């Protein structure tokens, strides 16, 4: 999207491996992400793409290889893990809003208790973010009273409230009805254009075409192919990529 070649590397993964018991989910992932880049990760289910972005904020632990996020290496070190998590916002497929808290409290909870902001400041920032995602009037409602698209936009606002360096999206539109996908994607496109570093696991190829700097095709725990959206869509090198793209594009 933007020219990011001169920016610093913010995420660096070298030869990342992960096993679930005997099952080898990630089989040596290498990736470098620069500040401000928008990365789209796609691939068939079970390819390890969700697992991979969850290792970046250590919701999953990797067993081999190095992951460095914002200059901090991810190890068995609790303080670093929480530091990383305040720098990386995450948006989940199932929204995972806190059902017992109002929309506003969902957003202000972490800034108040983790960032130690005063309540006024947290609420002011929260309202600005709700404005940005287009639903300031829902602030006092409970998540259960919102549509899926609205809930996901609240989830994005909740992640942004921590003012993260990086945003991770784990299939953010997969649980949404078609007419709601657009409202969420619009917010994400706006975010990408504002210069946020984003890693997005998604099959929304329109989104990838519009804002992705690079795309990664995952299969069986490996990066099969990567490149600019132009390369991937018009000139894929690998047969697996071609097959997969033909399946999701002619769907």
């Amino acid at each position, binding site marked *: 999207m933007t020219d990011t070649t001169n920016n610093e590397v913010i995420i660096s993964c070298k030869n990342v491996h992960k096993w679930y018991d005997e099952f080898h989910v990630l089989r040596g992932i290498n990736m470098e992400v620069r500040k401000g880049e928008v990365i789209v990760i796609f691939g068939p289910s079970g390819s390890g793409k969700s697992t991979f972005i969850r290792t970046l*904020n250590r*919701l999953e632990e990797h067993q081999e290889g190095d992951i460095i996020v914002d200059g901090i290496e991810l190890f068995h070190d609790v303080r670093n893990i*929480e*530091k990383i*998590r*305040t720098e*990386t*916002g*995450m948006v*989940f497929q*199932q929204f*995972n*809003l*806190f*059902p*017992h*808290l109002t929309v506003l409290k969902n957003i202000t*909870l*972490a800034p108040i*208790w*983790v960032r130690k902001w005063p309540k006024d400041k947290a609420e002011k920032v929260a309202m600005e973010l709700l404005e940005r995602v287009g639903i300031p009037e829902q602030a006092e409602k*409970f*998540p*259960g*009273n919102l549509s899926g698209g609205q809930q996901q936009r609240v*989830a994005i606002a*909740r*992640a942004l*409230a*921590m003012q993260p360096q990086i945003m991770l999206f784990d299939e953010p539109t997969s649980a949404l009805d078609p007419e709601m996908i657009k409202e969420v994607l619009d917010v994400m496109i706006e975010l990408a254009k504002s210069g946020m570093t984003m890693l997005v696991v998604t099959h929304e190829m329109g989104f990838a075409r519009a804002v992705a700097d690079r795309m990664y095709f995952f299969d069986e725990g490996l990066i099969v192919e990567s490149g600019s959206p132009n390369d991937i869509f018009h000139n894929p090198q690998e047969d697996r990529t071609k097959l997969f793209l033909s399946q999701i594009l002619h769907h």
Partner: protein
Amino acid sequence: MAATEIVQEIKRPPQPPGPIKWMRDNLFNGWGNTLLTLVLLPFAAYVMFSSIRWMFVDADWQVVTNFPLLYAVGQYPRDQLWRVGVGLSLILFLMGASWGKWGGLLRSIAIAFAILFAVFALLPVHHPEFDLGMRLYLGANALLVLAGYFIGRIQSLKASYIVIGWAITPIVTIIFLSGFENSATLPAVGTTLWGGLLVTFLLAAGGIVLSFPIGIALALGRRSSLPVVSAFSTIFIETIRGVPLITILFMFSIILALFLPSESRIDRLLRALMAVTVFSAAYSAENVRGGLQAVPPGQIEAAKAVGMSNFQTMVFITMPQALRAVLPAIVGQFISLFKDTTLVVIVGINDFLGIGRSIINSDPAFMQLQIEVYLFIAVVYWIFCYLMSIASRRLEAMMGVSTRL
């Protein structure tokens, strides 16, 4: 356009007509049900008529009406009764203040108690203990709830004051009830003299308030990743749950006394309270653990993803949702704890039921009046249990607003 017109033209179907239709639908649909109705209706009428006649004509309620204070406080010295009154009034006042401050469910609870005391004050009982002074005190308690309400409504009054009030009231009440050695104003009153509803409420309220946090701690302990903690919690919970309450009561009242040196004797009532607490804590723990398991893992991931620590996640995300999920079970358990306190009779404590038994045994003439005594006791237990269950249902409905996802 045409479609909406058609929709508007359709009227709501007519309401089913009154009681005759109801009877035809429910009592006389088909010859089988008609026969059943004809046989059972006279029988039901007979049972109802004879119960009412028994209640108002045959029954001799003197075993109830002659001992109002005995049922209320047991042998607590009559010249020291004001000390019980102080504790009671304090609680009612706080109830009113909480209603004023927070409203909601507390409103219904406070009003229920105010009505209860107004009814007490006007009970048609003729007994020297139930004199004008006593009636005035009981009536004043109803007004105290209202007074508390208006004070609670004052905006500048901080909610934390009321919380602090609730925190110190049990301590103040216990100090007032037990008093001090060699004190003229508050002479010591041994717990052997405490009894009746006073003891029942102390055991139930004490058991609930103490067992709940212990239960939460045990539930968290059982899920802990530290093997020692989780093994201890599991063994504790499973041991207590595998033993009847009576056994635990005996253990605390007899065995504990054997092991401890005689000068450090723990009070009899306190030992019973400990037994009830431990018993209830084990069950609370399992309820809370069930609730913890019901919280979707996505919730914890979301909390972690915004950088919350394990402790913060537990306090703000997991525990509130877990408790809400198992609220009915927890209230159910409190209700059964309230009823289970009757077992302390076994270790010689005169709770409400115990007082009833001792009244029956006090006079051979009363042996014929057992039904009256037990019926009265049953009704009192039923009233309080039913109030708890209404409160629980209201609480569920209130919380249900935000449960949907």
